[in-house]
């Protein structure tokens, strides 16, 4: 063959190859079905059919739109091999790059192909993902309809009550409702189902459950019929997301038929968290703790530090007696080994005794000090125990009693390694060594200006906090205190010096810090005796209610307790407790400081209270009572510090 012939053959071969490649590509395009979802076409930029599924990149806007419509979020980063999709009801679907196995709400399954990395994105098996989100691909003619489904119908017995929980891919829209006391029939539009058509629940308040699919492939309907036993009653409880709800059936009993719905016990008890692939481990019962070790350490300035190592969690209560004895009781705690008697040759502690006390059923461990005087005693709980430090310096706030909790929270013991605690963060702002103005109390009305704080049910936090602060100021001034507010009007105070200082320090988000530090500075620079930051709370649950008292530094705790007693008694709010939290203003105010969340703007009962001026006055009076219990009257206080 001549060179021309060879050239012609090469050209023909090249054309042939190009044709085959083009045909193959066209074939692939043809094989990618037309997808319909919620009455519109779902268009992907480059779907690739693969093993009966569709390979779609998370970069594809079509996939993003699909997830958005379902209220699902997607998380992936190239440095991690996991791609996590979180459904609206918080189920997670987890894919691993390079592995065909995936997990949907704890159930492990195999996809037709393994996801692959695609730069900063990942290519996923789309139809598998859709099914995991309760969206079933259904063929309709030559097209494929992505049909949202009712994915879960959970029946749970709780005593005489039966709870049915329904979860679907999309928000549930009801077309027809037939509601009798012992029978409920609902027809949902736009959602199909492939769940078992009928179930019986013998021995419960619910006799039968029927699911009847209807409609068309593109506009499906599902009729749910719940038939209770004769004489039973039911009520519907909305779910935490619009794609779920529960129905509670119970035999007619002392509970009135028209009683307002109460949240049912949940299908999966949080005491025994649901499995996500491994057997849940038993929980430690809080309060069964053991003192495993005691260490006595001489610190700087001859301070005595007693480190108490604990296994488990325990609550404690300490008391300071008038005869310079100080003791701490660890409740429901056992002492490993014999008791201890120590007589340090240094500092202000004359004797230390550690004893097993209480009874066999309610054991306790007491750690007692005989002090030379009213020395400062600092109790620092941690997840691994307790550290008690007795200073040689006189106590600034000689509170007589305090409580707290120590040790880790309930943790699974059979499958979780012992919790090695990270080193405790050093306390950066030490106890005040002196008070420049022992008659001054600084009140911080939370938020202000553009920062409205929480806003629910017509209540705005910044307005309420200023109102309470002004009422409290009137009471305190009448008692002889000097009072300063961090803001007098609807502004969010900030010091430009603070902004400059924070920026110079290289602190992240210097401006935000500066706003909060400015409030602290009002108290710190004036050498105030006390600092109270006033807030109004809110929560995602309407059930959360009451007054909460937050502290951070050790000297805050007894102050928080005093305010707790005062406010709860005066205002009649539910006692939501004294809590240790890392709130900026409490942490950075150098004197005893407490952040008070007076009530919840999201709880109907608390909302009614917050709307009444008399309640705001009672809250202010309660705080004043707490201040008096903690710090006494201003005149005697001032004298005692001079």
């Amino acid at each position, binding site marked *: 063959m001549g060179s021309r012939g060879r050239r012609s053959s090469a050209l023909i071969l090249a054309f042939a190859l190009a044709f085959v490649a083009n045909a193959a590509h066209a074939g692939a395009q043809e094989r990618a079905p037309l997808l319909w979802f919620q009455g519109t076409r779902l268009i992907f930029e480059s779907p690739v059919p693969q093993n009966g599924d569709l390979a779609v990149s998370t970069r594809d806007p079509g996939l993003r739109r699909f997830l958005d419509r379902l209220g699902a979020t997607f998380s992936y980063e190239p440095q991690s091999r996991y791609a996590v999709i979180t459904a609206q009801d918080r189920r997670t679907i987890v894919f691993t790059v390079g592995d065909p196995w995936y997990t949907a709400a704890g159930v492990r399954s195999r996809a037709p192909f393994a996801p692959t990395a695609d730069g900063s994105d990942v290519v996923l098996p789309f139809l598998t993902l859709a099914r995991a989100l309760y969206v079933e691909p259904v063929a309709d003619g030559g097209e494929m309809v992505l049909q949202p489904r009712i994915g879960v119908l959970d029946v749970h017995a709780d005593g005489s009550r039966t709870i049915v929980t329904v979860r679907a891919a999309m928000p549930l829209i009801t077309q027809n409702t037939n509601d009798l006391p012992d029978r409920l029939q609902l027809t949902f539009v736009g959602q199909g189902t492939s769940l078992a058509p009928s179930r019986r629940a013998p021995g419960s308040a619910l006799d039968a459950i029927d699911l009847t699919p209807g409609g068309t492939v593109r506009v499906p309907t599902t009729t749910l019929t719940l038939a209770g036993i004769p004489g039973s009653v039911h009520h519907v409880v909305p779910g935490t997301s619009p794609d779920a709800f529960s129905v509670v059936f119970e035999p007619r009993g002392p509970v009135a038929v028209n009683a307002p719905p109460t949240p049912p016990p949940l299908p999966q008890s949080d005491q025994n968290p649901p499995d996500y692939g491994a057997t849940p481990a038993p929980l430690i019962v809080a309060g069964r703790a053991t003192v495993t070790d005691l260490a006595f350490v001489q610190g700087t300035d001859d301070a005595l530090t007693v480190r108490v190592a604990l296994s488990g969690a325990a609550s404690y209560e300490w008391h300071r007696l008038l005869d310079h004895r100080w003791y701490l009781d660890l409740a429901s705690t056992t002492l490993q080994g014999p008791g201890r008697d120590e007589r340090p040759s240094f500092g202000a502690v004359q004797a230390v005794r550690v004893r097993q006390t209480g009874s066999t059923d309610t054991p306790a461990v007491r750690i007692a000090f005989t002090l030379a005087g009213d020395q400062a005693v600092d109790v620092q709980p941690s997840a691994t125990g307790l550290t008690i430090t007795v200073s040689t310096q006189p106590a600034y706030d000689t509170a007589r009693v305090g409580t707290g909790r120590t040790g880790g929270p309930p943790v699974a013991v059979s499958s979780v390694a012992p919790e090695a605690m990270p080193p405790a*963060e050093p306390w950066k702002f030490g106890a005040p060594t002196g008070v420049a103005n022992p008659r001054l109390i600084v009140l911080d009305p939370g938020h202000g200006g553009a920062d409205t704080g929480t806003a629910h049910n017509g209540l705005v936090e910044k307005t309420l906090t200023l109102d309470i602060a002004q009422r409290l100021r009137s009471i305190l001034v009448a008692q002889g205190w000097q009072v300063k507010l961090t803001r007098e009007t609807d502004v969010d105070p900030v010091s430009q010096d603070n902004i400059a200082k924070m920026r110079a320090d290289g602190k992240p988000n210097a401006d935000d810090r500066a706003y909060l530090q400015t409030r602290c500075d009002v108290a710190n620079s004036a050498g105030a005796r006390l600092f109270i930051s006033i807030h109004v709370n809110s929560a995602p649950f309407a059930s959360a209610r009451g007054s909460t008292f937050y502290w951070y530094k050790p000297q805050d705790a007894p102050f928080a307790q005093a305010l707790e007693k005062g406010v709860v008694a005066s205002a009649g709010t539910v006692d939501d407790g004294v809590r240790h939290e890392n709130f900026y203003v409490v942490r950075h105010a150098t004197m005893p400081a407490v952040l008070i969340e007076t009530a919840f703007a999201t709880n109907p009962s608390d909302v009614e209270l917050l709307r009444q001026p008399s309640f705001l006055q009672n809250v202010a009076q309660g705080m004043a009572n707490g201040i008096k219990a903690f710090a006494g009257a201003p005149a005697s206080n001032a004298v005692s510090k001079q």
Partner: protein
Amino acid sequence: MRTSRALALIVLFFVAVGAAWWWFHRSPAFGDSITVYYTKPDGTTLAPWRVSLGPARDPQSVAFYAATQAVAGPPPGTDAVRFPAGTRVRSVHVHGTTADVDLSKEVAGSSQEGSFAEAAEFKALVWTLTQPSLHVSTVTVTVDGAQVATLPGGHLELDGLTRSSF
């Protein structure tokens, strides 16, 4: 003789280098599952549950996975204080004993939920990431890539969170 001794020294050198590389690059041993914490509706009590791990067991992958599970919260039906809807983990980078977590802007929805929810949400996230097997003791949080000292809701400090922060 001198040559063989030199060869032995070279081999010994490479063995030592290899051992050192392995020591500093060894991956922590992760089991088949990790612990993820959630906060109960009282806003204080933590409860653990176990989630299965896929085949990826490198620290970055596991830390990212743990953070996404903590942000998603426990399975539906379990009563818990949860991050605002739509909040997702954009990235997690572990360096030394610090984990930098970047969350999407939806987390600022906490500002409508007050200090109660904000503290509870981050308590669960921090306890999850500081479990012993991850060798993380401090968690810093950014929002949409930007450093923030606090969220507007509860004024919780977000940089340098440790278990003792709560």
